[in-house]
């Protein structure tokens, strides 16, 4: 199980990010990407435990005995959630600053960039990033808190 997880999680994460990025034009998007990312993390939890992310991946010391609510990873998830909301709101308010109604989205095409030749930059991507972060943050908060019990 742990071996499989080591192999699959990076693949799943890359797929999740690509799904998120291509969302505007192909099937995918912030929500799907977010759920898939959360699934990857849950896989780690099932195979290892809540502390593995910190001790095994980031190589930090963990202080034992703290409750799950003050757990560093859980705090990080909550921050992710918050950051997502801020980005969503910010991308909405930015529209107001330019004089458009709240949550108006725009996009620009950038051409002549090496390798990709043409890249489309949509402000909707920023909004979607917020969606992605909120989904990841909230799902993982729930999962880790519940599993920590």
């Amino acid at each position: 199980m742990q071996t499989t997880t080591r192999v699959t999680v990076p693949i799943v994460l890359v797929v999740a990010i690509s799904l998120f990025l291509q969302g505007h034009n192909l099937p995918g998007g912030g929500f799907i990407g977010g759920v898939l990312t959360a699934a990857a993390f849950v896989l780690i939890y099932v195979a290892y435990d809540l502390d593995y992310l910190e001790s095994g991946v980031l190589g930090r010391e963990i202080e034992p005995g703290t409750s799950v609510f003050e757990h560093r990873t859980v705090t990080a998830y909550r921050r992710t959630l918050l950051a997502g909301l801020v980005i969503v709101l910010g991308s909405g308010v930015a529209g107001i600053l330019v004089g458009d109604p709240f949550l108006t989205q725009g996009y620009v095409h950038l051409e002549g960039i090496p390798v990709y030749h043409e890249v489309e930059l949509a402000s909707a991507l920023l909004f979607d990033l917020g969606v992605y972060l909120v989904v990841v943050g909230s799902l993982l908060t729930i999962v880790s808190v519940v599993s920590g019990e």
Partner: protein
Amino acid sequence: MAPDLTIVTTAVALPFVAAALAPLLYRVLGERTGYAGAVVAAASFGLLATSVGEYGTVRASWIPALDVGVQFTVDGWGLLFALLASGIGVLVFVYSAAYMHDEEGLARYYAALLAFMGSVLGVALASDLVLIFLFWELTSLCSFVLIGHYTADEESRYSARMAMVVTVGGGLCLLAGALMLAAAARGALGGATFDLTAMIANDEAMRASLRESGLFVPALGLIVVAAAAKSAQVPLHFWLPNAMVAPTPVSAFLHSATMVKVGVYFLGRVRPLLMSPEWVAVVATLGLLTMTVGALLAVAATDTKELLAYSTASHLGLMVAGFGFDVVYGGEAGAFHLLNHALFKAPLFLVAGIVAHEAGSRSLDELGGLWRELPVTAAITAVAALSMAGIPPFNGFYSKELLFEAAYEVAHEAGGLAWLYPAAATFASVLTVVYSLKFLAVFFGERRTPVAEVHRPPIALVGPPAVLAIAAAVVSAAPQVAVDAVVQGAVEATATGEAELSVGLPTHFTPPVAMSAVAVLGGIAAYPLRGRLAAGIRRGVEAPVPVRPSGWYDWVVSTAAATSARFGPAVHDGLLRRYVGWVAAAGSLFALAGFAAAEGSLGIGGLGGLGVPLPVAVVLGVATLAGVAVAIATSHVSGVLTLSILGFMLAIFFILASAPDLALTQLVVETLLLLMFLLVLQRLPSYYSEVRPLAIARDAGVSLLVGATAFVAVLLTIPGPDADPTGVATYYTEQAVPGGGGTNVVNVILVDFRAFDTFGELLVVTIAAIAILVLVTMRTRGEASEAEVEENPLPDGGDSP
């Protein structure tokens, strides 16, 4: 010339702003905050006084979609009421500064009093029904806070709650009535509108429209109930005497001069709109009944403020009766008495406060002959009490005489039972004289049981009632001056036709004059019998519960409390699965009821063709099998696995139905679910425990209900297979690339066209996460506190007196 919107809005908004600043003001000024309140009231009064004669309507848009606006109409009637409220407000604030000496919670007190004054000004000047409703309920809320000023006192809390339930409940009737009027306006004025001025301007069309839709009697009934609750009309009068636990300035301001008159005011306002035989039958009868019952109870009262409270109910009945009569005199009586009553009742309350403050008693049996110590107060009381009794030439006489004339005229025209109207009016007036004299006996006649040393009241206490008494004396001496100044405008606004009010002492003998003579002489003759009279009335009041409306109120409140105490544990028993059952069943039932109610407007579009492609049929067949398997699975592992089969089949179905985004989402969510189940599976027992057949039957019932609801909903909402895409769908498909810059329509809709929806959903997700976090954090804490509660059981919330 139309009034200035800025001036009117400022006059109404100023007290609210001051209310918001009251805590700050109190910190700076301390007990002198009352004088600051007086300045605010005077400012509002001054602003409104500049509008005298400049009648008209001003409007600013508020909710254009519903045609609700911030609309103020300045006319004689509204202005009379607004000037009264702000004018008496000035005096009450001055009085409060002296009366509420060394009291707690003064910041809250002044804030509520200021907000109350703003609300009354709002009711008086607003002419949009929604706005009137808002201000109406605000007055009830402020009254709740002020009656319950002594929060530590059980009786005070009980009375505040009672006043709140009765008056706010009445306010809801007003809302319902306003909606009916608005519905009728759709037919009569073209377009739903809450504009009361426009409704009154087209009163005949409105009445026809109301009658046509059968809403006339319900609307009339609801508005009368609302006004009766607010203005303490029988049988909803019982909250008013209880409200007297409030500090005396509050009683004088809210429960004699302003708040209780809001109902009367509104009746006068809609009188031209709803005048009809039904109106006369309901409103005039209600008014005279209250006038009589209130006077009877006032005679039986033993406490100064109780006497004044019942007398207020009685006089409110007089005004309501006046507005009930379909003759010119009726409206004149109501409008003029609104002014007169405020001028004599507010000083009487303030005097009762002075007596309680200086002589230390409110008992009518203990007080007597106080004129030696309180000569100025005694003079004030003499003017006000004689005016209340309706003895000529005091101002109360003129308006009461107008009511007699109205009652006599109506009886003369209708004959028969209508003669009860003048009879009841005269009878109530006899009693009015009796209780007025009884109140006067506090100051005159011999000394009773020696009360403790009586102090001289400070000028800030005597000044306000003196000003009011002088005003009453001026109106008494020259009634036509007051009429010309402001009352004539009020009479015109409430009259159903032309009305020219002229008042003065009678010069020749007419039946109404005879009624007045009977009232005054009868009252003086009956005064020596007051003891026996009071005893008889009290025996009647103490009869079994059915004749006491406050008994009914207690019964309703205690029954409601007991029912909810039983209902709570039944629904909220701590088992999450029980909650889910209730929520799912109730939600389904409501949805089905909604579909049933909308029957006919929804067509079934989904049953176009039953030709399902083979792959889809296979996938759905497997899904159905998996569904059955979940239900009969014997262990968690098999249950979870079969459930995910169901989920993946659905994902495949989405792919077959060319919805790749949905399929992806379904797949990913399904994976995540499976993983989560794996996470918790080791904690769960491997097999289901024994379940009772009854529980299975119940769960099956709920499941079937939910399934049926989903089925019906899908059937009713989806378009037929051959139907064209709707306009919205076409727009999205066409605009996705040029408008949103993306070729994935689903995603463009999510992040661009309907970004606001997505934002809302994100908030929901966040709230869910926070809720679970809190649920898990608090789980142990909640159990701990429950255990504590079990150890020290609290009393039952103190809901019953």
